[in-house]
Each structure stands twice: as structure tokens, then as C-alpha cells.
């Protein structure tokens, strides 16, 4: 690119962990369109996708199943254009989040902070004893802050990644996490 050219680059998550096996399976699937490769990819990634869908939707398992099915249909149709700019799991997660957002359209709200901007706190971890109660508490959060909490605290995404996935600023992600944790703490104590 010479001085007369410019490029506008969108924020892209870069991760290569676990990509080697995925690449082999994807290459084979694209070459042969075979069921075996697809099933291998499905079994590798669906438990995490399904877990995420259940929590993002906080609804019936049927809705989560539909979201996961839509995710795989969209992914399979676009897989030949996937550029490996991110890990396959990150890309699939992005598709799933969009599928869930479409289902939550109208319910999606960002809760505005009612105090000063929160700071990241390394020790801000909830004391959790009863998983079932925690799941119910997570499900009771507003969709926006629930999504940030699930993506950050359960699925390990960074605020930068969450910002790209949800189309928000990293600061909004931090703020939503702060409020989600505070609400959960209140619900669980």
C-alpha cells in the first residue's frame, strides 16, 4: 500500500489457541462437505455454545437449541469465507451472540450506572456455594448485564472481546460487569 492508499481496519480479536485441530476439520469439511468432519466440529464446540446460549437467553432449553442450530447453519454457510482472524470458537461465539440478540430484540437493555465508574478489581469474585441458586440469579439479571457477566466471568472473554461481540465500548462492558456482580451479590446474600 503506497502513500496514496489507506485502509480502515475493524477491531478484530486475534487468538490462535486450539486452532490447529479446527483448521484441519474445517479444511476437510470445506473440501468434502462431509458429515463426519462437521459432527467433529459440532461436538468440539457445541457444549460451550449451548452453555452460553442457555445463559444469554435465560429461557427454555428449546430457545437455546434453536439459537445453537441457527449458529451452525450460518457458520456452515459462511465457513468458506472465514479468514482465521480469530479462533473458530471466538467466531462461532460472535454468531451465537447475534442469534441470541435477535431473539432478545426488544428485551435488550443496558442498565446505566448510578454511581461513579467502577474499577477492575482482581478480588471482585463472588462467593458461590450453590450452583443452582447462582444460575437462577444469573437468569434474573437484565439481558445486557447478564450477557457481559456470562461472557466475562464464565466464558473468560476480555472486555475488549466483549465490546466487539456486543457492539459496545469496553468501558460499558466494565460498567455492566460491575453492576451484574453487585446485583448477584445482593441476590445471593
Amino acid at each position, binding site marked *: *500500500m503506497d502513500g*496514496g*492508499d*489507506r*485502509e*480502515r*481496519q*475493524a*477491531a*478484530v*480479536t486475534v487468538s490462535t489457541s486450539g486452532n490447529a485441530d479446527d483448521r484441519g476439520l474445517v479444511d476437510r469439511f*470445506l473440501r*468434502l*462437505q*462431509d*458429515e463426519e468432519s*462437521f*459432527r467433529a466440529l*459440532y*461436538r468440539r464446540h*457445541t*457444549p*460451550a455454545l*449451548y*452453555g452460553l446460549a*442457555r445463559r444469554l437467553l435465560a429461557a427454555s*432449553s428449546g430457545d437455546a*437449541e434453536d439459537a*445453537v*442450530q441457527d449458529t*451452525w*447453519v*450460518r457458520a*456452515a*454457510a*459462511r465457513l*468458506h*469465507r*472465514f*479468514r*482465521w*482472524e*480469530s479462533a473458530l470458537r471466538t*467466531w462461532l461465539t*460472535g*454468531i451465537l451472540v*447475534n*442469534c441470541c440478540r435477535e431473539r432478545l430484540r426488544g428485551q435488550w437493555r443496558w442498565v446505566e450506572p448510578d454511581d461513579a465508574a467502577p474499577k477492575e478489581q482482581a478480588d471482585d*469474585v*463472588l462467593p*458461590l*456455594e450453590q*450452583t443452582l441458586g*447462582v*444460575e437462577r440469579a444469573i437468569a434474573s439479571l437484565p439481558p445486557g448485564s447478564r450477557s457481559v457477566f456470562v461472557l466475562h*466471568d*464464565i*466464558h*473468560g472473554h476480555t472486555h475488549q472481546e466483549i465490546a*466487539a461481540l456486543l457492539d459496545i465500548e469496553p468501558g460499558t462492558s466494565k460498567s455492566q460487569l460491575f453492576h451484574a456482580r453487585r446485583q448477584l451479590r445482593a441476590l445471593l446474600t
Partner: protein
Amino acid sequence: MSEIQREVPPPEGLEQRVVSELRARGLIGPRPWRAQRFTVAAAAAIVLFMAGFGAAKWDPGGEAIPTPAAPQFMLLLHDTDDFLARGIPEDRLVEEYGRWARDVHAKGHAIHGEKLKDVPGQTLSGFFIVAVPTLDDAQAIADSCPHVQYGGRIEIRQIDPT
């Protein structure tokens, strides 16, 4: 959050349901005619390009080709993984890009665009040609394009007037 399991076993029937859906859509299973169909599609795209029309034009109407008096810049639209993950329906993109092009045209800039046929492994999905005085003007127009807002990437190249 270590007590919470990130992974949840999906229902047993889901895998077969997904596979059946992909098979029904032709995304799984041998398709010997695929290569031939693609060749035809690519050839059709070239013909449409040469003819200057197509099913998915982003033309604001009226002045289709930029006037040669002003420098012309090509805005090359590349699809990123982030853009693809958003799964925005193609008809919605065509409509939004068309509306954006009309807005640019209404501001006095000649603009013409086309959507390109999908080519496996290629990120280039379409282009606009805009006639504006400077590269900064072209950059400002590219920045306002919905393609960038949806996570896509736009490469700007000046057309050689010679």
C-alpha cells in the same frame, strides 16, 4: 466463577437436527456440480461488472459514473470475520448501502457501487467509486459507510487518471 460449568451438554437430538438442517440446505453431502456452478457464477459476475449493472447495485440513481473532472477513489469493501459473524441479511445490507450512497450523492458527490459475487477465500465483496477532491474526503466518506460500522474493512485506492 469456578463453580459454574462453562460447557453444558446439549440435548441428544440437537446434533442430528442440525445435521439434517444442513443436509436439507445442501451444506452437507457430496455436491459434484458445485465447481461448475461456481464457475458459471463467477463468469456471470464478470459479465455484470462489464455491463455496469447487476441485481445488487448500490447506485443512488441519476449520475451513475463519477464525473472525470474530480479525482476518483475506489472504496474496496472487504468482509472480515467479525462482519460475517454478525450475519446481517444480504437484502438488508444492499438496502442500507443503497441509502448511504443516496445520502452521499445528495451531498453533491458522484458515487457508483456494485456488489460482487461471492468468491471462496476472497474478502472483497463490493466496491464504490466516488469522485471527491482529496483522499481525506474519500476517507471521510468511507468512515461513514455502514460496512465499517458492521465490522467490515474498506481499502481506499485512487484511480489513476492517465
